[in-house]
């Protein structure tokens, strides 16, 4: 297990999704959309029918349904301290599929309604997490090792 929690900049090669991550810091959930066919896609990339020309970022409802979920019990060399308990695939209302952490009381059920919340995982680093709709106790739940929102991101990313 590594102590380094990955940040968005660690897992992709360029800044194509920079607008999305900036919006997360403002607690706005964006999805990229093709203006030629109205298809919503995530992460950033070209439309399979119309290429990159018509792609723009638009505000999404932040609501969706649970497609599948799992809990990683095994410690892999690339597992990190403070990883979320449950990870999931969500189908957004706009039709795009996203991978996300899932905060949920009890056993998740496929098809259940979820909505986005935002968790600060480091200094200026905010990632979306999906939660059971209407459960404020769940919305406030933070996975172990994740500090509350604020300027102190210390302890998350160790040297």
């Amino acid at each position, binding site marked *: 297990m590594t102590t380094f929690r*990955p*940040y*968005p900049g*660690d*897992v*992709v090669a360029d800044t194509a999704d920079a607008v999305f991550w900036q919006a997360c810091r403002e607690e706005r959930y964006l999805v990229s959309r093709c203006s030629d066919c109205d298809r919503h896609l995530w*992460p950033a*990339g070209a439309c*399979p029918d119309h290429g990159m020309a018509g792609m723009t970022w638009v505000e999404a409802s932040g609501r969706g349904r649970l*497609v*599948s*979920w*799992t*809990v*990683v*019990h*095994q410690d*892999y*060399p*690339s*597992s*990190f301290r403070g*990883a*979320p308990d449950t*990870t999931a*695939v969500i*189908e957004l209302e706009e039709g795009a*599929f996203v*991978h*996300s*952490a899932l905060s949920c009381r009890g056993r998740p*059920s*496929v098809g259940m309604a979820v909505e986005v919340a935002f968790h600060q995982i480091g200094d200026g680093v905010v*990632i979306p997490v999906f939660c059971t709709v209407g459960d404020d106790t769940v919305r406030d739940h933070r996975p172990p090792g994740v500090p509350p929102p604020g300027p102190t991101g210390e302890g998350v990313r160790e040297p």
Partner: protein
Amino acid sequence: MAGEPTIVGLGLSPQGRRLGVSRRELRRRAIDEALADAGLHRRQVDACICIGTELEDLRYAGLTPRTSFALNSGGASPGLSVLVAGGLLATGQAEYVVCVYGEAWTGEAPRLTPHHGASTGTDLGGYSYGYPYLHGLVGPASVYALAAQHYLDRHGGGSEDLAAVAVTERSYGAVRPGAVGFGEPITVSDHQESRMIVDPLRLLDCSRPTDGAVAVVVTSPARAADCAATPVAVLGAGTGHNLENWWNGTMFRRTGAAPDAARTAFRRAGVGPEDIDVAQLYAPFSIAVLLQLEEYGFCDEGEAGAFVRGGGTGPKGRLPTNTGGGQLSGFYATGFTPLSEGILQVRGTAPSSQVPGAELCLVSGSGGNGGVQGSWAHVGMILGRPR
């Protein structure tokens, strides 16, 4: 046209954990065994497809082909390499193509004393999965776990459906000399008591990396008749990609065999699922067997669990499957686990669990990453005697 690509040589090095032999030496041994099997001289190899490598150490292997290149699409690579070999044959670029894979993940081979420092290990597939890694989704098991959770939820099945796959494959591995599960049969309760790896996949749902190499020699049907070994032809093949299934929301129901690969393979071979005698499915995790039995049309949706529990994939079943123990209980050589066993079954020379009179064998492979975790290439091939 050169006709259907035909496999005339198979080389299978020892496969297992901690062999203590370097990958290039394992590859060399598999190549030499494949050439001896085919009755060919090494100078006759005019193309080499090197799977899962950047450095093609032809010099060490003693090969001097007219062309050589690397092919990297994980578990789909062996099947794809045979199709690419068919293209080299059809365009007059080669008469005998060697496709070779080999890895030594677990066995440190003896090394010369280094001048400084120590070699560093590489991270096995954390970053390569991109954004899901931000949320702690690590390793290939997690992709199959999402599919397994979806499957069990959708069909109301239990973990016993997964157990049935693991127990069946172990029953084959337990009688196959050299298999990782040799001499160690398991029960459903062994499976249910094994620890959870990535929910709902337990330890006995998962394959582990093994060391080993496999090579095949591919040629045209005309030249195959002159080779020493019993030829095995690719009667039909089909490719598919799970990226389309990601876009249309079906990726977590599929390995990429449906809709395109299965349909194309059967159409080109001119046969249907009912004609297949034996199947060798790429399944590093138990769920992949259930998905493919349905994708290839052997079972209706949601019925694969009952089919396997009822012995349908066992030695006396309708469709003996992964007859060398598969990747769970045999060995993990990416798509060469199913392909090598398929060749042996069609030749009638499997060292154990030979299916009597097996004429048609389905072989599959999945691997690579099209930009989303799980969006890999899939290839299905129907092997049989040349027609």
